[in-house]
């Protein structure tokens, strides 16, 4: 990986990077984070990594008011790496992956040598998500009930 990859595309906004790091495969995150950490001082663990709960709020349409649907299991890491803060929250119980994602976030923030690789990982993840979404829509579209016209018998 070279830093040139990062300049090949417009920079990812940070929030989008964190979202994609939350979706990336754990093995890829940890492998890249280990590379980032190999030549750097150990990161400071600000909070976590820890497994905890997020209460999920939904705004329902009838009264347009919020209610709590239930809780969601997440892993969170908040760290400092190369003098920059890195943050991650991912679904599920995987503190390692959350820590790795936070390191990668900070790697980009601190303009580290692997920034480009992190960016590359994010874009690969995004492509994969898009691809899955298209596949899914494709499979679903066949199940749509289609009518010949709107002048048919109602009910």
């Amino acid at each position, binding site marked *: 990986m070279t830093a040139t990859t990062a300049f090949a595309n417009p920079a990812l906004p940070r929030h989008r990077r964190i979202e994609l790091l939350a979706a990336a495969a754990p093995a890829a995150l*940890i492998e890249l*984070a*280990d590379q980032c*950490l*190999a*030549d*750097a*001082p*150990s*990161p400071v*663990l600000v909070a976590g*990594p820890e*497994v905890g709960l997020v209460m999920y709020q939904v705004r329902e349409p009838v009264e347009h008011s919020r209610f709590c649907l239930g809780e969601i299991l997440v892993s969170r890491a908040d760290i400092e790496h190369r003098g920059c803060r890195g943050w991650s929250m991912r679904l599920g*119980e995987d*503190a*390692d992956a959350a*820590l*790795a994602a936070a*390191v990668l976030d900070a790697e980009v923030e601190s303009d580290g040598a692997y920034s480009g690789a992190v960016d590359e990982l994010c874009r690969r993840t995004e492509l994969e998500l898009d691809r899955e979404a298209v596949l899914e829509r494709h499979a679903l579209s066949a199940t749509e009930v289609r009518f010949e016209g709107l002048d048919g018998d109602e009910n």
Partner: protein
Amino acid sequence: MSSIAELLDGRADSNAYGFAFLDEGSKREIRRAVLTAVAVPGYQVPFGSREMPVARGWGSGGLQITLGIIGPTDVLKVIDQGEDAGVNAANLRRLIVDTTGVETTTDAREATIIQTRHRVPEDDLSDGQVLVLQVPVPEPLRSVERDMTELARMHGEADYSKMWVSLYEDLVRHGVITQTTGYPCLVGGRYVIATTPIPRWDCPKLHQASFLSLFGAGREKRIYAIPPHTDVEPLTFEDVAFEVERTEGARCWRCASEVSFLIHIPGVDLWACSDSDWCNRRVAAIQPIPQDVHDILSLDASVTRALRVNDLAIVYQDPSEGLDLRVSAGGNIAAALTAAGWRHFGRIRARASELLARVEVPLSRMDDPVRTFSGGCDSASSWPKRWPTGRPSCSSTNPPPISMPPLRPVSWI
């Protein structure tokens, strides 16, 4: 110079549970509810109630309180039906020990926290001890009212008339109050509580107790408390006594106790203490119940008389030794009652007639001199005499198998 694996190495095993299972925020919430409950004795404090690693209805409320208040130096006792070895007690104890590492004991006097289902230990607990009661149904008024809004109003206005009417109806229809366990009690003169389903036998132990009682209802999400030195009055009419469980002639087949809550063993028709550890200690006599032990046969006459009035009755195998044959059957009973300070004629008559009825002496003969009774009858009438004031008793000719029963006041009988 590190890796993700190294950074996480040495952290607490993520599969292990933290001290006392619950997360710290939950424990804090439980302790706050407990403090509120102590501040307002008898008031049912709503709390979030976490789901526990036991099913709801299986002690989840008591477990939350115990885990919320327990510290590493606490000494724990867990009982179910008075028994340490009960299956659910064993499971709860194991859960608490596995997540806290605290010491356990079966001796109620050594425990700092006693979690219990359905019983208060027979031992006199002291201050500093906490009794945690598992509560299935915290609402004492549920039997008379289901609507929660109305229940909230009734407690808020201390309007317990529906409960009183139910007691009144009970008396009219059955002649006794038929409420069995979980007897409703007025705490601190303000709130009526459900005394979990502990037997009525245990209710007086909560009155002006030295220990703190905490009640946890996990499923219904309520915590309530009886702080030490608080009045706990079983609901009853002024002229209707609160009656605890009692079966004539019942005594523990192991320790001979008649002054503990006894459960029946059908088939063999024996009785046994429900508080198994208290009973074990009496049997083993390792640590006798901390009261003086006397050989009453060696005491001088005045001491014996005082004992008979204040502490225990003596039943003579030969009834003529214990009865005044010139006095009526009722009078024989009245003797003991007046000695104990009874001054209400109607009540003494009523008590005597009630006791005689229990031993099937016809009330029409209550006023007949005992000498006119047949052998079987006068033997029977000596029995009520042994417990007119509710003292424990022993037989004069068959020495007690272990020692004298504890000479502690049981005046609520």
